[in-house]
């Protein structure tokens, strides 16, 4: 326990406290930070890029959760079946997990190029004649959500697949004797049995989406205009383009608090505190 705490203190808590301290300074990454008290914190709510970025981050988080959770759950349960071909399909599905986030972003960036990518060929059939998916401020965010879905759903699917295989078969056998249909079994047995997995997966999605960065950075860079400039990206730009390290630190603190808060809310809503076993035969 002690070594783990020590490491967490040095590499987890320490930097957060450092950032918290820097958020009260004006610092360009050069020379000495100058203490400015609450200036950065007063400027935050007035900054449209911050409020807009926060709104976008929350929308992105909600969309990511709403797309990934149901799909990963259904596919995961399906892949938990014992038929051989499912293993093959499952394996193909997990391909994105083998690629780095940067590679995925570059790949999709190339596919979505309006003149030379797949977007130019497919666009006309889906009402985007000039292939301008990434450059349209009404579409760009949804494109990002789709890429994130493609990238991360297999991971959550893997969680659900493993958990679904743990559900005792006797439950289903009893339900079959009682005359339950497949849908009923799914909603009355599978979903309740997977509750903890849903919570864990949701926390990962929510916290992940709050701090999402590389996909947006590499595919749109926050554009067109500021249509996809989520808060973590704005933080990066403030820190490393504008060299406003103090201000960027204040944004970082907001992100830490927000991610932590959202994770807590997710756990609380799902009644995680009632740590009761759902397993037959276990106490």
């Amino acid at each position: 326990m002690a070594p783990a705490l020590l490491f967490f203190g040095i590499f987890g808590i320490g930097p957060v406290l450092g950032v918290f301290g820097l958020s009260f300074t004006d610092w360009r990454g050069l020379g000495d930070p100058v203490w400015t008290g609450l200036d950065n914190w007063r400027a935050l709510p007035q900054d449209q890029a911050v409020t807009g970025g926060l709104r976008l981050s929350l929308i992105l988080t909600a969309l990511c959760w709403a797309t990934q959770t149901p799909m990963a759950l259904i596919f995961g349960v399906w892949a938990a079946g014992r038929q051989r071909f499912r293993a093959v399909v499952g394996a193909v599905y997990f391909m994105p997990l083998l690629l780095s986030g940067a590679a995925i972003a570059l790949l999709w960036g190339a596919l979505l190029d309006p003149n030379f990518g797949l977007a130019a060929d497919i666009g006309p059939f889906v009402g985007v004649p000039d292939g301008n998916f990434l450059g349209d401020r009404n579409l760009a965010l949804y494109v990002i959500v789709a890429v994130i879905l493609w990238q991360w759903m297999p991971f959550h699917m893997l969680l659900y697949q493993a958990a679904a295989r743990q559900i005792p078969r006797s439950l289903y056998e009893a339900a079959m004797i009682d005359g339950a249909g497949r849908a009923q079994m799914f909603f009355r047995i599978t979903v309740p049995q997977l509750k903890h997995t849903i919570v864990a997966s949701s926390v990962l999605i929510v916290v992940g989406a709050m701090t999402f960065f590389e996909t947006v950075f590499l595919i749109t860079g926050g554009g067109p205009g500021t249509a996809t400039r989520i808060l973590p990206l704005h933080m990066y730009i403030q820190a490393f383009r504008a060299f406003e390290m103090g201000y960027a630190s204040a944004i970082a603190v907001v992100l830490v608090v927000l991610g932590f808060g959202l994770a807590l809310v997710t756990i609380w809503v799902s009644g995680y505190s009632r740590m009761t076993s759902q397993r037959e035969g276990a106490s």
Partner: protein
Amino acid sequence: MRPLSPRHATLAAAMALGLTAVTACGGSGASDDGTLEIWSLEDEVLNPLLQETIDAYNEENSGDDDVQLELVTFQNDPYKERLQVAMGSPEHPDVFFNWGGGNLAQYVEAGQVYDMSDHMDANPEFRDAFIPSVMDVVVIDDATYGVPMLGTQPVSFFYNAAVFDAAGAEPPETFDELLDLVEVFEAEDVTPVALPGAAPWTLLMWVSYLVDRIGGPEVYQAISDGEDGAWEDPAVVETMETVQELVDVGMFGTNYTAVDWDGGQATTLVAEGQAAMILMGPWFTQDAEANAPEFFESGDLGWFPFPELEDGAGDPANVVGPPSNYFSIHAEASDPDAALEWLTEYMASDSYVDGLIGSGAVPTVTGIDDKLAETDDGEFPTWLYERTMEAPTFTPAWDQDLDPGVAESMLTNFSLVFEQEMSPEEFAESMEATS
């Protein structure tokens, strides 16, 4: 207003940003071990030339008391961040590559750059070896802080002559002629101008030229000097109205916001004739050579200056763009005299300048017209050099000249104006508030 101690600040920063202390690859930072670190970018063409001068210097000065120079290179994108963090730390470079202007000025303000003025006064022939407008960019508060070390990069139009011929078009000499070309090329189903709008710095080229042609170079000079109301100059507002009009009439096509520069997409559009023209720095020719060699060799690659505005105040001979890149010396360099000696001996030397010319660059030293004319493909470098020499003013790239924070807001606001999400008046107000 209590400054924290530098040691704690650096530590906090290193922790906060998740950065380990910056150590140069293969080097040991500025140390007293008799080496002088020169930081530059990874560049397959330039670095052999630099290494040659470094080797020559090291050979000449191989005594026990002499320092040895060492070249340390970085990738382009992370370099600015690395430099920013390293400058104030004990691991700072001795000589560093930079962009001049506001980027350098912030280091000067922090007292981290060596003032070369005395050395330049003592060696006027070295100072005068460079084009004056290019030297101006590293003169801050009447003191000199850098030496040009790369080619000059004024922005101009490039076009696909085959597309122009097919449409029966001529390179425009006035802005109205440029506007008339929109209909000509749309009839041919060709985008008039390729604009890599996914990279906001490409929008700056249009803005900075229009401001110069509409209001003259004084408008940006006032912005650069931080004068009150400079951003609200009528020329700035008119420029923003003009770019919105250009977007409206279809000068850049419909999907320019998704076109990127880094992957060669914009270059390919021009090379393949899907677009007729592009406004870009001279690096366009190198990009064309790499991404569209057939087009580059075909002789269809033409160029012309940014056209004149009939009722504008700006001289159509004025140029805009990055004047050059520079080497500056850190204030706490282990041996600034050795650094000065190396810069003075080699940066304007025949062998280094010839090397630059050989790489397709246009050096910023005076009196090389004949040399440029003699090279293969010398037509474009000669034209560019003449335009640079004859330009009444050379306005530096705004985003490198201004304070990084202001430059960042500006580029974001450009993309909002082009997208019609921000009005020209709002742009002027917003920038005035930021500066």
